[in-house]
């Protein structure tokens, strides 16, 4: 589904991603872990071109994402993204937050979008908040809405950038629950997270990043039971 070829990203002279080549298949749930500053978020943000790669290629279903001639908006419509800080639109009701993009991109009529929004809200148990504003919701509710907003575009792939890192501890569970459900439905997911439990339970593959490289990767069972690199062992000993 996604091919990453020799991806490098530098901010000025600082090299954040160092020649990464990786492939992600349809239906995979790839969990990316690693210390802060290791480049995990930048890697994720390169996939939908929120960051422009310095070198290399990102190929999504045959389309080179970082080619000037590619209609990046069309590509992004197929990749949902969930942010650490939710980034809901504070000036709109929840319903409009969800329906804005499907309607503006002519994916749906307002009526269809409303119907989709209500169905999705029902799924995450927030149907009664459709006419609320983001400021009236808790962090966990906001993040569930943000997931729903991305899903309303009917994406083929979902990117999660530390979706639970800004939440109060008691709200982490409700967000992970929604993500688990999504995983069980077969959604292809790339998740940057510090939730090792989630990685173990939901991931089909764990990537460990450090210093702008993917240092080690494996199935969650193998990865957590038998880490190979010393750097991985050090990291896991601190977070587990």
């Amino acid at each position: 589904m996604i091919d990453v070829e020799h991806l490098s990203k530098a901010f000025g002279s600082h090299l954040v991603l160092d020649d990464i080549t990786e492939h992600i298949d349809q239906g995979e749930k790839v969990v990316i872990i690693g210390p802060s500053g290791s480049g995990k978020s930048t890697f994720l943000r390169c996939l939908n071109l929120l960051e422009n790669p310095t070198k290399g290629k990102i190929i999504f279903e045959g389309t080179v994402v970082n080619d000037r001639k590619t209609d990046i908006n069309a590509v992004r419509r197929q990749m949902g993204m969930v942010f650490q800080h939710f980034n809901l639109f504070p000036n709109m009701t929840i319903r409009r937050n969800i329906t804005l993009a499907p309607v503006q991109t002519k994916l749906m009529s307002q009526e269809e979008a409303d119907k989709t929004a209500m169905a999705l809200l029902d799924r995450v148990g927030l149907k009664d908040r459709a006419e609320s504003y983001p400021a009236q919701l808790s962090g966990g509710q906001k993040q569930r809405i943000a997931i729903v907003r991305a899903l309303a575009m009917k994406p083929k792939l979902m990117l999660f950038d530390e979706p639970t890192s800004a939440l109060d501890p008691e709200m982490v569970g409700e967000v992970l629950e929604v993500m688990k459900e999504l995983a069980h439905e077969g959604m292809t997911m790339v998740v940057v997270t510090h939730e090792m439990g989630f990685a173990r339970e939901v991931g089909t593959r764990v990537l460990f990043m450090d210093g702008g490289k993917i240092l080690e990767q494996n199935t969650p069972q193998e990865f957590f039971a038998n880490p190979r690199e010393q750097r991985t062992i050090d990291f896991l000993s601190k977070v587990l």
Partner: protein
Amino acid sequence: MAVPLFNGLADFGTKLYQAFLFEDRWKLYLGGLGNTLAITLGAICISTVFGMVLCLMRLSKHQVLRWPAQAYIDIIRGIPVVVQLLIMYNVVLLNVTDNKMVVAIIAFGVNSSAYMAEIYRSGINAVDSGQMEAGRSLGLSRAQTMWHIIFPQAIKNCLPTYTSEFIVLVKETAVVGYIALVDLTKVYSSVQSLTYDATAPLLIIAVAYFIITKTLALIFAHMERRLQASDRR
């Protein structure tokens, strides 16, 4: 004790009467007020729109748009508005129009645009960068994200400074006497030359300015409260 005070008040009452009611002199103020408001409103219409154009040019990725906007803003903000008004009247529009009202409206519109551009820009910059990213990640174009997501929030950010610019503009137009336009301030000279008293007309004019600016402030404060509906918990 009370007699001199009473006499003083009565005396001032007479002066006020002379300056305002006698021979329908209030009509002079009304005329001046009309001109002050017309210039202000005309100028704010220009600067509200042209300021936005300048702001978008400044935020553009293209040097050819950014540079002229930056130069315009720098130059306009670096020259006193009276000088700009005189340049407009005696140089730029000398052979274009004799209509002093038009000259004044253009001069103040051109001046205020530079400030408006900066007001808009700071309003847009104050919107969290995550908003643009969220919009773009959903597949909206930059323009769509700007229009539906960034601008509505930026307007809310701009409103307090927009209000002060509006109020500043009302007061700044007091210099149009330099091109012999009779605005509210200029009425003072006419009345003073009739009554030989400065106190009463100046007081009347000061009160009139205050009422205009206070009314504006109240109207915009009301709008601000309405725009903040989405922030309430």
